[in-house]
């Protein structure tokens, strides 16, 4: 009937569908064996950071035990090994995001640094007073604040695509905002609060018709679905390893080589130069000119293991899995009175992020009570204060999923919500 390969169940050929076998996958995540206050961990905060499979943890320690040496600097075995492992991941990432030119893959610390690099470096040479930068009302602070600084420094004007009540970008307004003055359109692929999957392909095409440069915040996109940067034709794409099973401290900026070539480095020093005299310096080729100093090569190598793991499961299977879980969560939450769920109801336009506001219990109290049952959810503004303001709430509660979550986790959340209301002596229905 069905055949199993690690973590994936191959459904009968006629359906052609692969589904994740969460029981097998969970075994690969040592942290999930931990008990929190005597309960199994129900980890529902993967949008903040994901847990790591043993292969990633082992790759990091194996590297330090066997191959550690600084890259690009020594013609000896250890250094050759770490240099080639580092460069191999560049190639692997280029393949993973749709077969782009690997010269366009720059390693950074995280999505935030990647977005700052674009804002700082590209904008410096290309933005002037009166130019317009289009963002959205649902951006994470890391795709807002760098542009606020650029606008303050250059006199450029920020425009924001509003968010509709049900959590979509108002595309009619986007088309009205676009003009000859538009120089940059920078949007998130997926909202980290609403879960909205934005029509980025359409946005990119429209922006390009005005010769604007397009930047995608892929922090919540790349980890959860197949992303083809070549087909999307985005000019820049930023994402973080730690949100896709990889270690902290590694981010990626993909940029079209022809743009990167014209950009100045932001950080300078060792590793990014061609020739230095006492009074002058020339830059190395891309991507190295953006990677000043010793990079976090050990974590890059561990990230490679994370990519292998994801590819083994297949991004398509991951998306199907998260869709099912999200639909189930929305259905269960809808039975609660006095509880507002944010974001699109149409599961085709929604990723595995479900934020809600319980009118009876403050988000902080709810997360403390859920924690006492071992349930980890996030309460707060999720680094999206303008979006919170849009919905007139100071904070909300967010559950987000990944490959190791299943319906039992959702059931635990629902059960926890009921208990929390009982605890505060409110009627539950």
């Amino acid at each position, binding site marked *: 009937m069905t055949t199993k390969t690690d973590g994936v169940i191959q459904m009968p050929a006629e359906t052609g569908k692969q589904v994740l076998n969460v029981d097998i996958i969970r075994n690969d995540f040592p942290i999930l064996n931990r008990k929190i*206050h*005597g309960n199994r961990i129900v980890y529902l905060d993967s949008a903040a950071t994901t847990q790591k499979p043993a292969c990633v943890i082992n790759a990091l320690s194996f590297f330090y035990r066997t191959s550690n040496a600084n890259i690009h600097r020594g013609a000896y075995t250890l250094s050759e090994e770490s240099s080639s492992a580092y460069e191999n991941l560049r190639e692997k990432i280029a393949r993973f995001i749709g077969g782009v030119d690997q010269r366009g893959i720059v390693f950074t610390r995280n999505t935030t640094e990647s977005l700052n690099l674009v804002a700082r470096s590209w904008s410096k040479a290309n933005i002037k007073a009166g130019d317009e930068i289009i963002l959205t009302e649902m951006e994470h602070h890391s795709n807002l604040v760098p542009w606020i600084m650029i606008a303050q420094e250059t006199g450029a004007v920020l425009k924001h695509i509003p968010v509709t009540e049900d959590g979509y970008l108002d595309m009619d307004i986007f088309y009205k905002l676009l003009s000859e003055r538009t120089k940059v359109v920078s949007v998130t692929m997926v909202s980290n609060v609403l879960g909205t999957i934005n029509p980025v392909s359409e946005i990119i095409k429209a922006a390009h018709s005005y010769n604007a440069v397009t930047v995608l915040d892929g922090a919540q996109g790349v980890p959860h679905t197949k992303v083809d940067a070549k087909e999307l034709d985005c000019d820049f794409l930023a994402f973080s390893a730690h949100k896709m099973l990889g270690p902290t401290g590694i981010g990626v900026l993909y940029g079209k080589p022809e743009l990167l070539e014209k950009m100045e480095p932001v950080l300078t020093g060792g590793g990014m130069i061609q020739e230095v005299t006492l009074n002058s310096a020339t830059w190395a080729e891309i991507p190295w000119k953006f990677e000043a100093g010793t990079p976090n090569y050990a974590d890059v190598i561990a990230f490679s293991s994370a990519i292998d793991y994801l590819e083994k499961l297949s991004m398509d299977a991951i998306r199907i899995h998260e869709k099912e879980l999200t639909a189930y969560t929305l259905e269960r939450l809808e039975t609660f009175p006095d509880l507002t769920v944010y974001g699109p109801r149409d599961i085709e336009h929604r990723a595995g992020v479900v934020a809600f506001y319980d009118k009876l219990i403050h988000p*902080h109290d709810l997360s403390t009570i859920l924690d006492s049952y071992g349930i980890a959810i996030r*309460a707060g*503004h999720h680094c999206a204060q303008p979006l919170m303001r849009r919905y007139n709430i*100071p904070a909300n509660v967010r559950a987000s999923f990944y490959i190791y979550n299943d319906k039992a986790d959702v059931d635990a959340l629902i059960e926890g919500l009921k208990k929390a209301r009982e*605890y*505060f002596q409110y009627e539950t229905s």
Partner: protein
Amino acid sequence: MKQVKLDDLYRDTILDHYKNPRGRKELDRIDAEHKGYNPLCGDQVTIKAKFTNGYLEDVAVDSQGCAISVASGSMLAELLPGKSLKEIQQITEAFREMMHGKKLPDDMDIGDLDALEGVKKYHSRIKCALIPWITLNDLIKARQEKETLVSPSLPE
């Protein structure tokens, strides 16, 4: 599902203050007003105060926040009216120290505040308990600075 004892965090006294906050009222005269924010969660508290001869005659506390911060603000509103600025400062300091694990002086009357002692074990929540107190402290400081400009000697 097993549950750890949360009762040292959400004591009945706290839930009672949360559901019926004592400071949610209007004052017949407002001498100073101050807003406090908790940037971690977006919570807000607005404190209005009426002073008479260096004493806090009355105080209104309007909290938008979690049970801990609302209850803490309510206890503040119940405890402080009639106290001198110096006493208020001492209680605020003692409460802050309690949140960081220190024992209170035996002779200090802190009203219902001891019910909040359990909060000290929940590191991310200490700020919730302190926010009304920090806000009142800021209000008093702002007022004193203003008064120093007018009259150099301040009543204690």
